[in-house]
């Protein structure tokens, strides 16, 4: 094998603290450096590996920056049309009830064009996991306004900042679907610090564990940065996210065991 490391001499068993899971394909990701998408991919694949369910898992990825997620995740996947992942996942889980099924969707995908599919899959109480990457913008298409774009936040289609009188309010879809009887576990996490990453992984683990109980949708939102779309450095974007996104989209569990968290 060709050596890819600058300092192969450092690669000794006693120095090995972390190893990429084989469930992540060994190839460059299509994400911008600093973007949260890749971190969530890793947590997700680690969860499948630790639970040893990769061969029983079917993933559905969206149209958005993660449109190529099926190339990076070494499991069987389907690429949905923009917004329709929950419809695919509904059929898949009903036709293969003992498979683990998840969708991975952006905010435009899940909360704009796919709002109906999201709400109805949640309300029917389908038994799959929805992973929702909320970066408040349409990353893939070049930084247009998303349903989750904050008031005053600039995007290429709100170049002077989102004016709620003209463009409407941000949609808190996670709070909305938490109200529905078909959701069982709803949580909002982030991946900008090691501690946050660990929490997200725990949430993902719980979401997949719950698929065994067949009590409804497990929904993990990850508030994430889009340093390119926000036109910031990765570090600036994470600071901006903590200062602006988290107050609007507070982190933590929203619904646990089918009960809203007070």
């Amino acid at each position, binding site marked *: 094998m060709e050596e890819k490391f600058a300092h192969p001499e450092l690669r000794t068993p006693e120095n090995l603290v972390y190893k990429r899971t084989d469930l992540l394909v060994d190839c460059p990701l299509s994400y911008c450096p600093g973007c949260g998408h890749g971190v969530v991919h890793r947590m997700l694949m680690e969860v499948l590996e630790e639970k040893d369910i990769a061969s029983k898992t079917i993933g559905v990825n969206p149209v958005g920056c993660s449109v190529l997620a099926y190339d990076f995740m070494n499991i069987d996947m389907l690429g949905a049309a923009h917004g329709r992942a929950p419809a695919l996942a509904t059929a898949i889980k009903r036709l293969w009830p003992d498979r683990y099924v998840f969708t991975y969707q952006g905010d435009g995908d899940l909360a704009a064009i796919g709002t109906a599919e999201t709400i*109805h899959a949640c309300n029917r109480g389908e038994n799959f996991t929805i992973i929702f990457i909320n970066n408040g913008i349409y990353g893939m298409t070049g930084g247009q306004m998303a349903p989750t774009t904050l008031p005053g936040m600039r995007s290429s289609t709100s170049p002077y900042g989102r004016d709620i009188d003209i463009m409407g309010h941000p949609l808190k879809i996670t709070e909305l679907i938490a109200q529905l009887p078909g959701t069982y576990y709803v949580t909002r996490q982030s991946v900008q610090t090691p501690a946050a990453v660990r929490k997200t992984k725990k949430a993902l683990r719980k979401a997949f564990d719950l698929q065994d109980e067949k009590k409804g949708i497990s929904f993990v939102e990850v508030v994430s940065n889009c340093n390119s779309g926000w036109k910031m450095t990765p570090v600036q974007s994470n600071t901006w996210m903590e200062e602006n996104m988290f107050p609007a989209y507070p982190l933590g569990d929203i619904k646990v065991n089918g009960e809203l968290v007070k």
Partner: protein
Amino acid sequence: MGELRLMKGNEAIAEAAIRAGCDGYFGYPITPQSEVMEYLMVERPYETTGMVVLQAESEVAAINMLYGGAGTGKMVLTSSSSPGVSLMQEGISYMAGAELPALIVNIVRGGPGLGTIQPSQADYFQAVKGGGHGDYHMIVYAPASVQEMADFVQIGFDVAFKYRTPVMILSDGAIGQMMEKVYLADPVPRLTEKEVIARCPWASNGRPMSRQHNIITSLDLDPAGQERLNLVLQEKYRKIEESEVMFETIDCEDADYILVAFGLSARICQKAMNLARQKGIKVGLFRPITLFPFPKKEIHELAKRVKGMLVVEMNAGQMIEDVQLAVGCDIPIKHYGRFGGIIPTPDEVVKALEETIIGG
């Protein structure tokens, strides 16, 4: 063995699907096809064969449920009528691009827009020429009886899996709603998960570590790759054109004039043909059964022996374009159509033949 029953066309589709071992039906109510799902909900095949039946929140969701199910290798069915099928076009295009087998039934009603709930054939172009975006085709069957509604379910699933392509049954509100005697084949059991995996090694249904992961997609950002996919599709359509053409001829041997019609129009033309023959006009009927692939060669050969053709459709003139392309020689080809849900009478057809072709 099998069984004879008196049924509506829509019910025959539903019953035939259960008997064909269909794994899942996903649909949204719309007249004149709601009986398909209503029949399934009464029969509850989920308790007998294990077939999933789900009322989706829209046709958009229904077609994407189909895409999901088909992408895992399962036998899946949806049905709708014109406005609903318009909503499905993006999903159908995705399925054609991702090479997924599925069966889609369109019980056509008059349009455009909300139109009418009465029967029509105005969705011919949409069904046959693509409908959604990109260069693709579905195999399209046009049943002319309740019996064919049932028959094309099994046939449709077979070719869908043979070619990995979406297949459409293009019918209309009259055939969907009318009752006729129908012979139903004995039920075949649904495939087991093992059998599904063996039949569809390409499907994404959980990756054993002994193989690479499967990906269901129509995306290739590299133009060369996307062109390759298109060439694969075009090659598939050529094979389908070579092997899957179906048509019916009635009394064409001695005919001077030919009526060309599909589906319900062909039933009316059969009567018109008899009326014309009583008047001493030698008329035959050519009925395309597959609309894609279109029976081009057969129409071309037939045209050499006759004096003219009247294409009868419940639309403003759609299939006639394919007939004209197929004929390729100098005989009159005219159209007679009624639309908006009006069904032409046999007398009207004979009159049109006399006025536009014989006297024209």
